[in-house]
């Protein structure tokens, strides 16, 4: 190829790699410069503080050997013993639940789907507890979206609703939205920026208009905006703590924009109404498209949570929460969703890859894990690893192993290996393949 996929300038024991894709958030910034010396990352340029922190701390708090046993009774085990134990537990299981998949490659996710299908278990990815409602709403109405470059080149109005990119997606503003420069927009001064949130976030400070909505009233506000955009009259004076005159101002800004982009985050998906909030946002954007051009883009969290949805969908037809127990993919929110399976205590084994559900699911749901075996593949010593009956260390996707990932706007990217993993530590794809082979042998 004329353009090599990565430039490597070798200087003694040191090399610098350009255009590295950042394995932190859904922005997947692909302009990171990483310097390596003696096999360790010593410098990271262009990354935000979150991304840089991940690159620079991969060696800390790591799980270095497979372990068997919970908490303090854990003991080190060989990889083959750990895998034998895992396979033994899987074989005896009637309804295993496979969970995680947001911080690994699509290659690993597809192997996870293989495993769940063969064993007749359920498999879910972490998007169900962040942008699951976005997916649910998309299934009922359809998302009206665009890649981030459309925003960069064209958007003269940007609305952040229930999201705080300055803290969660720090480079979003410079690279993709507020101050990005493109063909038809030369930067911040060509754009208007609106922030809608329940608190004055850091992002609100850079906005032209900040609208503070009462917690849990987004649905009402979005509904009122839909009425205003459709030129229908409101009978009330204020909605969700916002005077109607202010909403009229926002509605006019939206209609007058040539290309508007509504970015939304967990402020909409997790609050009162959940998927219905997103439906209301989609309906608003639909109405806006009769008058101008408007798109809506979810601010996805982990670097490959979007990829998990994509891979789940192409293989099974459904983006999250698949149940293979009857030999084919089935899906129904509230039934096959991970939190609900755990809450009802229905799975008899919990298999976690690249996630920390103990930290990120309600305690009342994960308490079921005291009754069933827990298996985890993770590079780090997390609370979930600590609780696991078997944990196997794996390499960091995007740093120690290459793999395919999807940015928040579904643009696919190919991550590259930068350094070797610590000795004896394999990529999760390798571990999953070993388990799969042994499971195939006995099912």
């Amino acid at each position, binding site marked *: 190829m*004329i353009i090599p996929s990565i430039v490597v300038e070798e200087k003694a024991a040191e090399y610098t790699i350009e255009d590295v894709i950042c394995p932190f958030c859904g922005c997947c910034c692909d302009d990171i410069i990483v310097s390596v010396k003696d096999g360790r990352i010593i410098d990271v340029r262009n990354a935000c503080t979150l991304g840089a922190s991940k690159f620079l701390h991969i060696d800390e708090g790591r799980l270095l050997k497979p372990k068997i046993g919970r908490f303090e009774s854990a003991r080190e085990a060989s990889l083959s013993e750990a895998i034998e134990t895992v396979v033994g537990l899987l074989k005896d299981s009637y309804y295993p639940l496979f969970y995680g998949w947001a911080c690994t490659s699509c290659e690993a996710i597809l192997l996870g789907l293989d495993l769940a299908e063969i064993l007749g278990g359920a498999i879910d990815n972490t998007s169900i507890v962040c942008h699951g409602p976005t997916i649910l709403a998309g299934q009922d109405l359809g*998302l*009206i979206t665009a890649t981030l*470059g459309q925003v*960069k080149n064209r958007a003269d109005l940007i609305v952040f609703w229930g999201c705080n990119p300055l803290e969660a997606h720090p480079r979003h503003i410079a690279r993709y939205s507020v101050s990005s420069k493109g063909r038809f927009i030369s930067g911040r001064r060509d754009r208007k920026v609106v922030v809608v949130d329940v608190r004055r976030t850091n992002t609100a400070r850079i906005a032209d208009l900040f609208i503070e909505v009462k917690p849990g009233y987004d649905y009402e506000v979005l509904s009122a905006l839909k009425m205003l955009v459709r030129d229908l009259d409101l009978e009330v004076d204020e909605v969700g703590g916002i005077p109607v005159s202010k909403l009229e101002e926002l509605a006019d800004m939206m209609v007058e924009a040539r290309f508007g982009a509504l970015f939304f985050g967990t402020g909409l998906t997790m609050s009162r109404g959940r998927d219905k909030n997103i439906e209301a946002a989609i309906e608003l954007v639909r109405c806006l498209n009769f008058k101008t051009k408007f798109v809506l883009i979810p601010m996805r969290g982990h670097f490959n949570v979007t990829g998990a949805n994509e891979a789940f969908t192409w293989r099974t*037809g459904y983006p999250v929460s698949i149940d293979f127990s009857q030999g084919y*993919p089935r899906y129904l929110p509230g039934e096959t969703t991970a939190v609900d399976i755990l809450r009802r205590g229905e799975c008899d084994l919990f298999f976690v890859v690249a996630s920390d559900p103990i930290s990120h699911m309600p305690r009342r749901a994960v308490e079921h894990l005291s009754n069933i075996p827990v298996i985890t593949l993770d590079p780090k010593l997390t609370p979930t690893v600590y609780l696991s009956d078997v944990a196997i260390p794996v390499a960091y996707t995007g740093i120690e192993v290459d793999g395919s990932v999807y940015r928040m706007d579904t643009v*696919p990217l190919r991550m590259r290996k930068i350094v070797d993993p610590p000795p004896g530590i394999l990529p999760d794809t390798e571990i999953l393949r070993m388990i799969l082979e042994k499971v195939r042998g006995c099912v």
Partner: protein
Amino acid sequence: MKDALLIRNGVVYDPMNGVEGEVMDIAIKDGVIVEAIDERKAKVIDASGMLVMPGGVDIHSHIAGSKSNIGRLLRPEDHRRSYEPKTALTRSGVGHSVPSTKTTGYRYARMGYTTVFEAASPPLKQKHTWEELNDIPIIDKATLTVMGNNWFIMDFISQGRIEDAAIYAAWLLKATKGYGIKIVNPGGVEAWGWGGNVYDLDELVPYFGITPREIVEGLCKINSMLNLPHTIHVHVNRLGMPNNCWTTLRTAHTVRKAFGGGKLLIHITHCQFSGYAGSTWTTLRSGAEYIAKYVNSVDHISLDMGQVVFTDTTTMTGDGPLEFRLFQSLAGKWANADVEVETGAGIVPIRYSRRSYVGTIQWAVGLELALLVNDPWRIVLTTDHPNGGPFTAYPRVISWLMSSKARSKVMERVNRRALKYTALPSIDREYTFTDIAIVTRAAPAKLLGLKRKGHLGVGADADIAIYDLDPRKVDPSVDYRRVRRALRRAAYTIKGGRIVVVKGEVVEDIPGRSIWVDVDIPEDKVEELLREVKPRFEEFYTVKLRNYPVPEDMILNPSPIKINPSI
């Protein structure tokens, strides 16, 4: 002898080699068709009384990539009514109109299809397309690369830098592992970036100082400069609008005016959707006769049908404004997904109803095109899967082509008023088995320039479909149901010399090959151009130039075709 196979006594239809229903043996070794093999050491399939044809080739089908996946995501209700449990040999899957990856491969193989072209892939999302294609088993796959709204191509053409445009296009094909140049609503999808569209060949694309006519002519020129195996593959402007058959004809004719006749220059895809006369939806008429008359009088154009079948399906296209219009009239689900610098996409579920006036016209237009175009080598059977209906409907479409009785049966139950405005009731042409072998295999392979596909001559890939149907005994005109049934489930499908389907069931789950063109442009020319392009590229795109190409190691079973351009 490894992988030796002998198909004995089949009734063979191989139009490319002039074989029309002869009883003969076919010998296979190492995945290709050979003159003869040692029968004692070969596995033998007794195909006596069976129809033997080359494996089917689908020239235009939306099976993988961003759009297809949005379609899947959008339609859980489509999956619930059509699912396939895992078996000891195969994987599970779901989907009536937008099947999941594994199921897509199995269903094509069960019908005896062995090569499928994904019809439209935006370069920026091409890695996604290949990841899905990797996951589709059995069939060989390739993709057509969307270029008709690409900013760099449009800029180069409007600046008169046609050679640079050609080099850029060649680089795009190489970088994305694409097979050919796809044009979707030239200029119109760029205008959709502002919520607009273009409605005429000579309308200026906003901000680009270029017209659809110039885009089509430019890419047609580029196509021939690069010596690509397939012509430009065009989804015309005004697709899916009343009275658009004239736009179709003018698009076809503009390349003839520019480059003359004598060879194929343009493929008008899913022509049914751009074959309407009548100025409004209520006065919609079939425009198939006008198009067929033109096609019959020239030699530079080929078509595929884009046949509509009466079912619940999912429309998906790069033509964003078209899907928005569809949403306006159907008011159900609508997904949109613009792709920066390149194209857009829209997805809307639809139900084609027999009773509806428009649905009936659409159904008739596709069949009229196939029946009125005289030369079967220039019309290919498609449903523009899943736009006109899922590909699993091909046997139904074949039965309509082969039997006027089958068509009459349907016509008894469609919208009567609509039928008056189509020529279909008066057409009595019926396709022969040779015609079918042409429009489903030989013609698409030939139009795509696939030298080893679509025929059973020595050296061809051993992709073969065997159907439990004796063409000497069955009259398809009368016994069309039998034909339809046999074609739904191949008695045997052989892919690359391996038996993958027996009696309509998949017996071996093998990966297919990935085909693309490797256009051999001098490296220094490409490098020079990219040096110039890079700053603008990184200003317009949100990815770095280096992260844009599809790395070759992402692709399963790569099978590139070397092309020597005339640059």
